[in-house]
Each structure stands twice: as C-alpha cells, then as structure tokens.
C-alpha cells in the first residue's frame, strides 16, 4: 500500500515536470514573456511570426553547424558557404543566373590578349568593422588565396596564373597573368578581407550586405543588416540561423512558429507542413548527388564492379521511392542547372539492367555478389534515404549493402579527408561555379599528397591517365567552345569508367512562412537573405 502511494506521488510529480517542460517550450517558441502562458499553440505560432515580422527579423533553420573556422578562404562545408555568402563578397560576385557581376570592384577592363585585368575599386566600400576597403586589402586577399596552403586547392591552383598584382593610383588594380584563364572571374568571387585583421576564424569581417554578430556552437548563428553596405541593402534587420541536426526538428520548428524558413526539405517533410502557413518553393540543389565509390578500396578498384553497380542502381526508382519523383537524374559529375557543361546524353548511359549488372559481376569474379558498406552523414536525411533505397536495389544483384550512419564531423574527417570508406552517398557542389571545380577533383594531382603531405579533393581516389591528360588540355585551352568540349570529354570519361554511381541533382524544397517574400534561387548552394522581406 505504501509502495503504491509512493508510486502515485512519483507519477504525479513526473506529469507535473512534463507539463512544466511543455510550458517552458511554448514560452521560448513564442518569445513572449508574460501572463499568457496558457495561450494555445496556434495562437503562439501566429504571435511569434507576426512579432518577428514587426521587428523585421527572421529565423532560418539549418541542419548543421558552421565550420569551426569561419574564415571564408578556408571554408570547406557547403553549409558554411551557404550562410557566409551573405557576409562576404569578392571583386565580383555571382548573380542569380550564376554570372559574375561587379561587387567590390566597380569595373573591370580586360586586355585583348586576356593577360591584363584592370579592376577599378568601387568608391567607399566598407568592411563591417568600419574600415574602408583599399587596394592593400584586395591584394592581401588575393595573395592569401594564392599562397596559403590551407586554402581550398581548387581556388589556389586556379590563381597560380596570376603573375603580378600592382596598384595604379588609389583605386586601380592591375593584374597580370602568365597565361589566359577563362575561369578567373569565377575565382575572383573570393572574399575580400581586411589585410590587418587576424580574427577571421572567430569574428569574420567582410563587405557583404549582412555582418556576422555571433554564434553559439551547435545552436545558432546571428547576422545583422550592414547599414553601410555599398549596394542594395537587405530588408530584414536581423537574421538568426538555428541549428537542428534532426530535420524533423526543423519541420516542427516551422510548425511551432520558431522558424520562418527552412531549405533543403524532402517531399515527405513538406507533406507534414500546414500549407496555410507556408509557401513551398522548388528549385534545384545544384549539387551532384552520387554513390561515390572509393576507387582504391576493394572491390571498387575493379572497373567492372563499378559498372555493375551503375547498372544495378535504378535512378528513377530512387527518385520515385525517396523523393516522390522530384529531382533531376544525372550521368556524370555536372548538375543539369549548369547547362553550359551538362551533357544530357550521359544520363542514360547506364540504363537500369539487373541482368547486365550480374553479368559484369560474374566477369569481375563476384558471381554471388559481395558485402559492402555505404557511409552516410546521418544529419542529411535525403542521403540516408537514398542510401537505404540503393541498399535495397543492390540486393537484386546479390550485393549486400549495410549503411554506416556517421556524424557530419566524422564524415568530414574520416570519410572525406581521411578517405577511409568504401562507398558514400553525398552531394558535391561547385565552388567556385566552374566546370574546373567540379571536374579537377578527380585528377591525379588531387589524389596524391604533395610534398607537405596535403591531399587534394580526389576523395574517391579516381585514377585515370586519360582524364589527367584531358584536364591538362582543358586548362591550357583558351577557346571557350573548345574548352567546353574537353570538359564534356572529361565528364564522359568519368561515366565510361564508372568513377561513381551518379544519381541526381536533388529538388530543393524551401518552406517559407506566408508573408515572407523575395526568395531567390541561385545555381549555387547559397541562400541570399538580402532579397527576403516581410510584407
């Protein structure tokens, strides 16, 4: 009897604690301190968002924390660049079509032989710390990207063609190249940073329409409108990014009124949302989603096995099963929105064909299939779903695939940098937006370590002499049409040798709270907050 009484008291106190917990949650979500603790959830939603609209603030939900270092020249993760796009600018920057337009430079003159670029510095461009941008800052930033070994090798190798940077008066920069480079303008979107500032890691300072205010690790990042911006200023005064590694959490955040905008949602998650409160916008992710195969790990060091996998995987099946039919199938390492370089004929190169896959496996010496592991970053649900569908499809040819869900940090360190994996599902972006940045990563130069032991971005260890030769040709080719042709050859090479199982460019579903307008899609993995506004 006494025991029952005790249990009863415990149960009651637990329920009370639970209720208290809920109450606190609501108060936090609505952000209202007051006596209306009992206000129902619906009213709370309404209230929170209208209050933010009034205060001219928005809260955006993202699925991963930013890189440890916020220094834009060192940034690795697409998720970091997506946010910091609003903070930094280069001499030029991308517009929504993917073309480069003047930013910190107001004008550029290119000599006829393509060797001398003369940039005119825009008048009165200010850094977020109040200093005015001068030529020293520009030269420092470009020089740093060219020389610093920690910079993304795609950027630094591209910049090696710069022979000299000279000042001409107060506001002209003369850049002389050793050889013409058709991709230089894309590379010059690199962030212009103050020369005499050493806290970019933790308190980044740029020239963009939004300035960085602060971050709480694993929790949030705050940006604020930069009042002295040289161009069209942003509309929203304060932007907060909330980090929630569970996408379900983001969806709930939207519903509860805590979040106003979430990108990269899946069709299933969109289906959960109440359409009365949200507009769903659809763009493309502009990334190459593939089952990347480690070409040095058995059995994927055998081309026949890789080809078998390409035949065994049914791309349309993946789209239907995991993405409700949304998405754009691809056949090589370029996404469809990048129309100039996208080769549509490669999409159907490997038609889904179980019989052929089995034949190839038999030929390769695996008539009964084999066991393999697919490593996936657990916080990117679309990749996890894709991997799960692939595992099911591979069963048909006798391959037994197990998923290894890892944390994002461990994916970056072990899988990508450490190349310690058999296969992984991930999406690769183009940054800068050039064919080179998408295709150079599979060359030998990016595969093997340099003298200092740094390895490049060829994390799948693709090793093909023809491919390397084509790349050499491409970078030396100054005729645009000819260059496009060579890059397309490279794409074809990747497809023919089945470097990886290319799947799709995912549809990018963005949920935007009603009343918030101005969402602009870029052919880049970025979210431009400067065009957003409350009506």
């Amino acid at each position, binding site marked *: 009897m006494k025991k029952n009484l005790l249990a009863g008291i415990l149960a009651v106190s637990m329920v009370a604690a639970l209720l208290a917990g809920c109450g606190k949650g609501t108060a936090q979500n609505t952000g209202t301190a007051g006596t209306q603790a009992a206000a129902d959830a619906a009213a709370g939603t309404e209230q929170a968002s209208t209050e933010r609209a009034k205060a001219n603030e928005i809260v955006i939900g993202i699925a991963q924390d930013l890189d440890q270092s916020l220094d834009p020249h060192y940034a690795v993760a697409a998720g970091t660049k997506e946010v910091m796009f609003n903070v930094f600018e280069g001499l030029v920057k991308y517009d929504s079509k993917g073309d480069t337009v003047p930013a910190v430079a107001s004008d550029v003159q290119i000599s006829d032989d393509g060797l001398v670029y003369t940039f005119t510095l825009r008048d009165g461009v200010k850094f977020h710390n109040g200093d005015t941008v001068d030529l020293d800052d520009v030269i420092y930033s470009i020089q740093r990207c060219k020389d610093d070994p920690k910079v993304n090798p795609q950027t630094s190798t591209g910049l090696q063609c710069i022979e000299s940077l000279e000042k001409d008066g107060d506001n002209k920069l003369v850049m002389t190249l050793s050889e013409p480079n058709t991709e230089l303008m894309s590379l010059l979107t690199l962030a212009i940073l103050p020369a005499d500032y050493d806290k970019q890691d933790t308190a980044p300072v740029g020239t963009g329409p939004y300035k960085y205010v602060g971050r709480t690790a694993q929790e949030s990042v705050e940006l604020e409108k930069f009042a002295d911006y040289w161009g069209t200023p942003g509309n929203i005064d304060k932007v907060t990014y909330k980090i929630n590694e*569970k*996408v*379900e959490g983001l*969806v709930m955040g939207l519903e509860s009124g805590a979040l106003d905008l979430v990108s990269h949602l899946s069709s*299933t*998650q969109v*289906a*959960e949302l109440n359409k009365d409160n949200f507009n769903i916008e659809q763009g493309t992710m502009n990334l190459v989603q593939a089952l990347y195969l480690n070409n040095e790990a058995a059995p994927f060091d055998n081309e026949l096995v890789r080809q078998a996998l390409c035949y065994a995987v049914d791309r349309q099946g993946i789209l*239907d*099963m*995991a993405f409700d039919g949304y998405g754009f199938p691809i056949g090589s390492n370029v996404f469809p929105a990048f129309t100039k370089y996208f080769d549509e004929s490669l999409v159907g190169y490997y038609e889904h064909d179980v019989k052929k896959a089995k034949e190839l496996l038999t030929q390769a010496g695996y008539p009964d299939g084999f066991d393999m592991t697919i490593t996936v970053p*657990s916080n990117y649900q679309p990749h996890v*779903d894709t*991997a*799960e*569908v692939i*595992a*099911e499809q591979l*069963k048909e040819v006798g391959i037994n*695939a*197990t*998923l*290894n*869900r890892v944390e994002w940090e461990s994916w970056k360190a072990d899988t990508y940098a450490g190349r310690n994996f058999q296969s992984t599902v991930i999406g690769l972006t183009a940054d800068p937006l050039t064919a080179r940045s998408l295709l150079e990563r599979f060359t030998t130069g990016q595969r093997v370590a340099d003298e200092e032991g740094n390895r490049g971005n060829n994390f799948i260890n693709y090793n093909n002499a023809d491919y390397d030769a084509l790349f050499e040709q491409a970078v030396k080719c100054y005729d645009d049409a000819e260059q496009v042709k060579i890059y397309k050859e490279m794409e074809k090479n990747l497809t023919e040798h089945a470097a990886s199982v290319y799947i799709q460019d995912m549809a990018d579903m963005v949920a935007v709270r009603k009343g918030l307008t101005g969402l602009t899609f870029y052919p880049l993995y970025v979210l431009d907050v400067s065009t957003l506004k409350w009506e």
Partner: protein
Amino acid sequence: MMKKKLNGYLIAGCIITGIIVLWIIIGRFYTPYPPTKMSSAKLQAPSAAHLFGTDKFGRDIFSRVMQGSGTTLLIAALTILIGAGVGTVVGAVTGYFGGIVDEVLMRLNDALTAFPSILLALVIISILGPGKYNVIIALGIVFIPSYARMMRTAFAAQRDVNYIISARLMGASNLRILLIHMLPNTLHVLLPALTIGFNNAVLAEASMSFLGIGVTPPDVSMGYMLSEAQGMFRSAPWYALSVGGVIALLVFGVSLIGEGLQIMNKEVD
C-alpha cells in the same frame, strides 16, 4: 521446501510475453511481406492488406515490426546474458573470497557505475562503430556493474552460513560450493533482476537506435523505426503507435513476469 504458488501476474505476464515471442519467432521464418521490400504504396493507413499500414518507402510496417522486435529481443537477451553472466561471476568471486580481489574488482565496478549508462554505451559505440553486435557488446558492458554489485551481496550473505561451512569442512572445492550450493540460493535475487534488466536493455537498444548509433539499416530495429516515425507523426500516426505499442507490450509482459516472481518469492519466505 515450500511449494511455490503461481500468481496472476506471473500467468498474465507469461501469456503476453509468450504470444509476442511466438509472433517474433514466426517473424524469423515468415513475414507477410519481405521487411525491406519497397513498393509504391507509400504511407498507407492500416488496412486488411497492411495491418499496421506502410512506411515512407512503402514497406509493410507489420512485417518490419515482426522482424524488428526480433532484432530488439535478440539484442536485449544477449545483452543480459553478457551483463548478468559477467556480473554474476564478478559478484560470486568478490562476494565469496572478499579481500584484495573484492577491493580491486568492486572499485573498478564503481568506476564503471560512475558513468551515466547511455553515455558509457555511446563511448563504447564510438570506439567500436555502430552495428548490431557492437550494440550488444556496448550494452552488455553497461549492464555488468549493477548485476555484479547485486550478486556480490547475495553471495556474501551466504558465505558464513552453516551449510556452506559444513560443505567446506567436507572438503568441497570452492567451485563446487559456488556452483552447487550458493548459486541456486541466489536465484530469487537474480531472476527478477533479469526481467528488469531485460526491459532496460530493450529500451536502451531502442534509444540508441533512435539516436542513430545503434542498429544500422538494412537491419530493422524498433528504435530506428521509431525515429523514422517521429518525423511523420501527424501524417502517419499509425507508424509510431504500432511500433511503440509493440515495444510497450513486450516490456509490460516481461515486467509482469518479474513482478510475479517477486511476489512468489515473498510468499515462500
């Protein structure tokens, strides 16, 4: 020895658990649909064809639960086997011999207890990597300390009672004394503890898979299904409810058995 009487708890618990275990065993050999077979009938509500409905890949939830609870049951059982097995050995050695062995082992045990159990499991998993068997090892280690402590008390209590002293005088070996004379007399402590431990293991496995560090697909597990179901609770409530319901029922059944055993022992005393 007094006759042990069955009681209502025990009977009800055995019936519930028995039905579920039978269902799970059937699931090893036969499921209405292959548990990982995807189809275009996605997120269907429960119907005659799909008793528990279908999930986001059009897989039959009933079949998945049949198989998934099997995985969960296997993990829980093996976990307890490791935890209670090693725990009993440690408890017997420390409780019976005492002295320096007792000191060293029990301090180690204390150190292990100092970590919150799920955190300890997390650490072990992060070293071993995820997967069914690693989960068993991790949880097994986590469960050792509580059994060791409990069994030590049970063994120590008998060390100086008359029949043990007599056995020792008769020249019985330590091993014989431990196994034949002492172990049977600790069962009244061990059995209820096994049922409680089993339930904790079921829940621990579910929590770990829920957090994404336990069983990995395509292995089906209850926790993984729950974490999937959580995201679609509004559009497909049957998913979370059916998976959660089966876990609850399994735990409930075994709890009843534990309760029944305890009552039975009390009546004997």
